[in-house]
């Protein structure tokens, strides 16, 4: 496994108004890894992704990507550097077709060049989307919408893909399919995934970090975390 550090999050604190969501959180993602961020709801996982992709400015701390300090850059600049964020709850452009959603994923001039190839690649990965390319995104089923969201994220040709709760609201079968697709993608892109379904998430991850109340609780190889009782505690509060 490559040991190059792709993303380095260093002691970030973040607030919503006067509510502190993150308390000096630090972790790393190395190239070609799949890293899972675990923890109960409200633990700060989503906030963490928002800080990385520039949607939320941290109060203190640093985010480094490929050695470059990207703290405080705009989301547009960060996408351009190669971080794609697939937010929680899909967040498609509901009145556009599947294809238009993918095109907007490659809005950046850098990604526009290979738009056709990339669309074709995504349709190969998600054949279901190819069938529905002209359908308006708002009318797709939950599972299909998740596929569009992931495919749209990949259209910007990222080096790092941030996935927020891809299984949210999906049936176990669809969850399995979605995560299988993520595993497939992880061959070409580094993945940082937030997943509520712990076992499913850890199954595709190399390593995991467990967060509680905006702080790091445990970390370790996925295989080790699977057996860790601390996870159950973090989620169920027991």
């Amino acid at each position, binding site marked *: 496994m490559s040991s190059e550090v792709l993303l380095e999050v260093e002691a970030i604190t973040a607030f919503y108004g006067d509510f502190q969501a993150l308390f000096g959180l630090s972790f790393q993602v190395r190239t070609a890894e799949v890293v899972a961020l675990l923890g109960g709801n409200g633990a700060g996982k989503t906030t963490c992704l928002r800080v990385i*992709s*520039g*949607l939320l400015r941290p109060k203190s701390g640093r985010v480094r990507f490929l050695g470059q300090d990207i703290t405080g850059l*705009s*989301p*547009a600049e960060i*996408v*351009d550097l190669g971080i*794609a*964020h697939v*937010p929680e709850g899909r*967040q*498609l*452009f*509901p*009145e*556009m077709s599947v294809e*238009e959603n993918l*095109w*907007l*994923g490659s*809005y*950046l001039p850098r*990604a*526009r060049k290979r738009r056709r190839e990339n669309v074709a690649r995504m349709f190969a990965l998600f054949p279901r989307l190819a069938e529905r390319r002209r359908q308006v995104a708002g009318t797709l089923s939950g599972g299909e919408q998740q596929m569009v969201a992931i495919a*749209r*994220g990949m259209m*910007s040709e990222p080096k790092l893909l941030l996935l927020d709760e891809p299984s949210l609201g999906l049936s176990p079968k669809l969850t399995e399919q979605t995560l299988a697709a993520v595993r497939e993608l992880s061959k070409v892109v580094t993945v940082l995934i937030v997943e509520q379904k712990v076992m499913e998430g850890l199954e595709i991850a190399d390593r995991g970090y467990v967060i509680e109340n905006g702080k790091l609780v445990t970390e370790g190889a996925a295989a080790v975390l699977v057996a860790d009782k601390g996870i159950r505690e973090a989620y169920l509060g027991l």
Partner: protein
Amino acid sequence: MAALQAILNGILVGGIYALIAMGMALVFGVMRLVNFAHGAFLMVGMYVAYFGYTLFHINPYWGCALVGAALFMMGMAVYWLLIRRVMGQSDFLQILLTEGIALCLVGAAQLLFTGDYRSISLPLADKTANLGPLNFNVAYGVSFVIAVLGVTSMYLYMKYTEMGRAIRGVAQNPGVAPLMGIRVRWISGISFAFGVACAGGAGALLLPVFYVNPTIGSPYNLKSFVIVVLGGMGSVEGAALGGLILGVTEGLTAYYWSDSYTQVVDFVLFLAVLLLRPQGLFGKKAP
């Protein structure tokens, strides 16, 4: 037959209404901002076209593109200087700010050009053409055609260009648009400027058939609200259709009742739609 004539007249005016309202719908769709200065920008467009014609002999028909471009720049400036500062603030402040801008523009026009009514006389304006048994004023006809061209090209621009897609993207999901690399503030500025350009260009098209004076914009302001509400707030296609509907309604009101009551009917229609079908005549249910 006379009723058909009324409908034709309505459609001709409605084409221009469509262009005006489209601009307002665009701004509302992208920025959730109701631009109370829309009619004032239309007035500015009329003056620009007026002086373009009287000073430089620029025919407003092809000059409307120039007027649109000039107003686009003006819209950009107004966005960066003023509008940007109230984005994300309450409706209350946004509305008062745009109303303030409207008053400034109207007041400036009063200072610069006095309250006099001015008009240009194109040779076209006196000609009448026939369409089967119906007839229409050629100047209206030409304005209609150009307005429809404007609406169509705007529609195609939104549908097929990279920028148009980005604008629609921001309108449909402003929260996620930045993650595509779209600079939302920049897109908002462009949309605002496009909206202002629509109003200005439409102003140029109105010049051959109407007088211009500083307060000419305010009825159009209200009319475009009516149209935008008819078409479903923020729907650009809806606004185009709403424009035609309003034009025809006015034509028929003028024919069956009286010219002076067209606006009363406009507003009654407006209140009725707002109260009974707030998503507009064609809009889907608001999400």
